[in-house]
C-alpha cells in the first residue's frame, strides 16, 4: 500500500518535494504475535495511553499502534535507569509498540531496536513522554535495524515547569527510517535538548520531522542534527520551532549539518521558524558539504588511507552526540555499529 507520513506543520509549494513523504509498497503486519525477544529492566508497567497524537506518522500507522500493538508499556520513572531492548530475530520480525513514560523522578532511559537477523523487519512505534515539574529525563533511542527494514517512530513529549528532557536519537539503521518528533513545551523554564545523528547509505531513506511548540515563558528548545549520507541515500530533515504567543523570553535554536560522502546522495532540509511572540530569540542554521579537503589531506599525511581518514572525520562529527550516552556498554555498541557500517 502507499502511505503518506511526516506531514510538515505548515505546507509549502508541492514543487519543493518536502510537504510529506510518500512511500509505496509498505506492507503493514496483519496479525501480530507477541514480540518475545525484548529485554526490559522495568517490570512494573501499566497500559499506555491511546490518546490521539497531535502530529505522528499519519492515521494508518497511528491506528495500527493503538489497535494492534504487540508491545505496550507505561512506565513511571523512579530515579533508576530504564533499559528496553527490542531484539528482532527470525521469530520476532514485526514490532508495533506503544511506550508511555511518565517522568516523575529523574531517570536515564534507553530504548534500542536491534536486528539479529538478515530478514526484512518492520517497526512502527510510539514513545510518549510527560516530564512533570522539575523532572530531568535523559532519553536515548537507538536504531540499529538492518538495511531491509522499515522503521517508523513517533515521539511526543509534554514538558512541564522547570522540567528538562534531553533526547538523543541515534538513527543509523533501516532501509527507510522515519521519525516524527513533537515536543509541547508548556511549562515555564522547561528545557528540551534534542540531539540526533543519522547515517544513511546505499538506497536508504531518512525522513526526520521535528516539531517544537514553545509555550512556556523562558522555556528553551535546542535541536542539533549531525548527519552523514553516502551512496544514493535520500534524506529529508524538517525542523520546526514554533514560538506561540505568550512564550516570552523563550529561546530556540536549530542546527543541521549534513556531510555528503557521495555525489549521488541527496539532502533536503526545511528548517522552519514560526513566530507569534515578539520577545523571543530564534535561530536556525543548516549546512551541507563534502569532507573538508584540508582536513582530509592532513589526516592522510599521517599515514591513514582515504577510507580510514573519512571514517575518522565522521566519527569525530558524531562523537559529541554519542558522548551524551551515559551507559558505557550501550555507547560502545553504538561506536562499534558505526565502525562496522563505515567499513
Amino acid at each position, binding site marked *: 500500500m502507499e502511505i503518506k507520513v511526516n506531514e510538515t506543520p*505548515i*505546507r*509549502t*509549494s*508541492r*514543487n*519543493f*518535494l*518536502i*510537504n510529506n513523504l510518500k512511500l509505496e509498497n509498505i506492507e503493514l503486519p496483519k496479525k501480530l504475535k507477541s514480540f518475545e525477544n525484548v529485554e526490559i529492566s522495568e517490570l512494573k508497567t501499566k497500559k499506555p495511553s491511546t490518546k490521539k497524537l497531535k502530529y505522528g506518522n499519519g492515521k494508518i500507522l497511528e491506528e495500527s499502534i493503538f489497535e494492534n500493538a504487540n508491545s505496550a508499556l507505561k512506565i513511571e520513572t523512579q530515579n533508576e535507569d530504564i533499559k528496553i531492548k527490542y531484539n528482532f530475530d527470525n521469530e520476532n520480525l514485526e514490532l508495533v509498540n506503544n511506550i508511555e513514560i511518565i517522568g516523575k523522578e529523574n531517570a536515564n532511559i534507553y530504548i534500542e531496536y536491534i536486528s539479529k537477523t538478515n530478514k526484512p523487519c518492520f517497526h512502527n512505534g510510539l514513545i510518549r513522554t510527560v516530564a512533570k515539574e522539575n523532572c530531568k529525563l535523559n532519553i536515548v533511542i537507538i536504531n540499529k535495524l538492518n538495511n531491509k527494514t522499515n522503521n517508523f517512530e513517533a515521539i511526543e513529549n509534554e514538558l512541564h515547569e522547570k522540567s528538562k528532557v534531553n533526547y538523543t536519537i541515534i538513527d543509523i539503521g533501516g532501509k527507510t527510517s522515519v521519525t516524527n518528533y513533537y515536543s509541547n513545551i508548556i511549562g515555564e523554564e522547561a528545557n528540551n535538548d534534542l540531539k540526533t545523528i543519522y547515517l544513511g547509505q546505499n538506497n536508504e531513506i531518512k525522513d526526520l520531522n521535528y516539531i517544537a511548540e514553545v509555550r512556556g515563558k523562558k522555556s528553551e528548545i535546542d535541536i542539533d542534527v549531525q548527519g552523514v549520507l553516502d551512496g544514493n541515500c535520500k534524506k529529508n530533515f524538517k525542523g520546526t520551532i514554533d*514560538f506561540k*504567543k505568550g512564550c516570552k523570553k523563550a529561546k530556540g535554536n536549530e542546527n543541521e549539518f*549534513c556531510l*555528503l*560522502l*557521495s*555525489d549521488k*546522495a*541527496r*539532502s*533536503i*532540509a*526545511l*528548517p*522552519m*521558524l*514560526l*513566530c*507569534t*511572540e*515578539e*520577545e*523571543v*530569540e*530564534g*535561530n*536556525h*542554521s*543548516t*549546512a*551541507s*558539504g*563534502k569532507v573538508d579537503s584540508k582536513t582530509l589531506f592532513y589526516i592522510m599525511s599521517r599515514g591513514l588511507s582515504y577510507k580510514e581518514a573519512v571514517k575518522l572525520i565522521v566519527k569525530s562529527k558524531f562523537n559529541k552526540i554519542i558522548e551524551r550516552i551515559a551507559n558505557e556498554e550501550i555507547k560502545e555498541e553504538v561506536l562499534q555499529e558505526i565502525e562496522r557500517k563505515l567499513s
Partner: protein
Amino acid sequence: MKTKVEDINRNIYDIKNKDEYEFKIEKGLNKKIVEEISKQKNDPDWMREIRLKALETYNKLELPTWGPDLSELKMDNIATYVKPKTELNSSWEDVPEDIKNTFDKLGIPEAEKKSLAGVGAQYDSEVVYHSMKKELLEQGVIYTDMETAVREYPEIVKEHFMKCVPVNDHKFVALHAAVWSGGSFVYVPKGVKLDIPLQSYFRLNSPESGQFEHTLIIVDEGASLHFIEGCSAPKYNKVNLHAGCVELYVKDNAYLRYSTIENWSKNMMNLNTKKAIVGKNAQIDWVTGSFGSKVSMLYPMSILNGENAKTEYTGITFAGKNQNLDTGFKVVHNAKNTSSLVNSKSISKDGGACTYRALVRIGENAQNSKCSVSCESLMLDDISRSDTIPVNDIRTDEVTFSHEAKIGKISDKEIFYLMSRGLSEEDAKAMIVRGFAYPISKELPVEYAVEMNNLINLELEGSIG
C-alpha cells in the same frame, strides 16, 4: 509602552482618479472574455492561441494549497482588461491631464529627467507613455511596450514569451498568459552596457480590476542593464488583483540588476511571478522591497544554467495591519561553479504577517557551487507574525552551502548601549531599525531609497518593557 512604528503616509499613492476608461471588459473569466481581450489588442493568431490554451490550463490547475488565504479573491468580480482613454505616447504633454498628474505626483517624469535612460508608464491595462534616450536607440537598445514588441519583433517574442516561466507553472501564471496586457520589452544588444537605469512604473487606478503586465528582458552576451520597476494603486474597499509576469534572459557574460519597489494598496492581491535564466559567467541581482498589498505571494527565481553564473538577492518585506506578505527567493544551480547569495529581512508590526519562503536547489551537475543564505526577521509587537520556511535541496556533494536565520525583537542590550552613548530611547530604537534595513536600502536606487526611508521614517514613541 510599546515601540510604535507609523505606517507610510500613503497620500501620494491613494490619489484616486475617476474610473474613466475607453473600454472595460466585463467582470469574470471565460473563453469569450479572453477572445475579446485578444480582439481588442489585435493579437496575431499565435498569441491568441497562447491565450486560449492558457485559459484551459488555468481551469485545470488548483489554487495553491499553501501560503496566505486567497478566498477573498473572486475572479467573477475582477475585470481583467481596462483600456485607458489614451493611446501610447512618447511625450508627457500628450498624456491626458489626470493620468499625467498621477505620474507627476509619483515623481516619474522628474526621475526620468534626472536619472533614467528610459521610462515606461502603464495605467490600468495599457502602457500610456514610453520613451528612451536617443543614444540608446542608436546603440540598438530596444525598450518598448509588449504590444509593440509582439507586432514588431514577433520572432524574438515567440522564442522567449512564456518559455522562462511556463504557462503551467501555477494557476496565476496561466491566468496571466490568458489575459496579459501591457508591460515592457527590453533588448540590450551584445556588448552594450547601460550606465543609467531604465524604469517601468505600473499604476492600477480602476477598482475591482486586475493588472497583468508582462515584462520580457533580454540582455545579450556581454551586455549590462539596470532595470527598475515600481508599482502602486489607490485603495478601494474591494479586492484588486495583480498577476504580472517577468521573464529575464541574461545571456553569457551579461549582467542584469532588477530592482523593484512594490507599494500596492492594501486591497491588492499581489500574485506575481518573476524568473531569470542566467548564462555562462553571467549575473542577475535582484533588489526587492515589498511594502504594499493585502496579500503578496512573490518569489523571484534565478535559474543558473551557465557555468560560473551568479545571483544575489537582497530583499526587505514590511508587513503592517491586515497585511500577509509571503515573499522569498528561489534559486536553482544547474551548472558548475555557480554561486548565490541571499540576504533577506522582514519587519512585522500591528498584526501584519511576514513569511520568508524559499528554495535553494543545487543540482547533480552543479559541482563546486556555493550558496549562502541569511534571513532576519524583526517583530515589533506580539500581535504580529513572522515565519521562515526555507527549503534547501542539495543533490551533489561538491558544494558549500549554508543557511542562517534569526528572529527576534529589538535587543534591549543594543538600546541600552546606544542610550549609554547619549541617544534618547526613541533615537536609539530608530537607529536600530534603520540599521536593520540599511543593507537593503543602500542597494535601492536613490529615489526609492528615499521612498523606503519615508516608510521607515520612524515615529517611535514610548519604550520597551
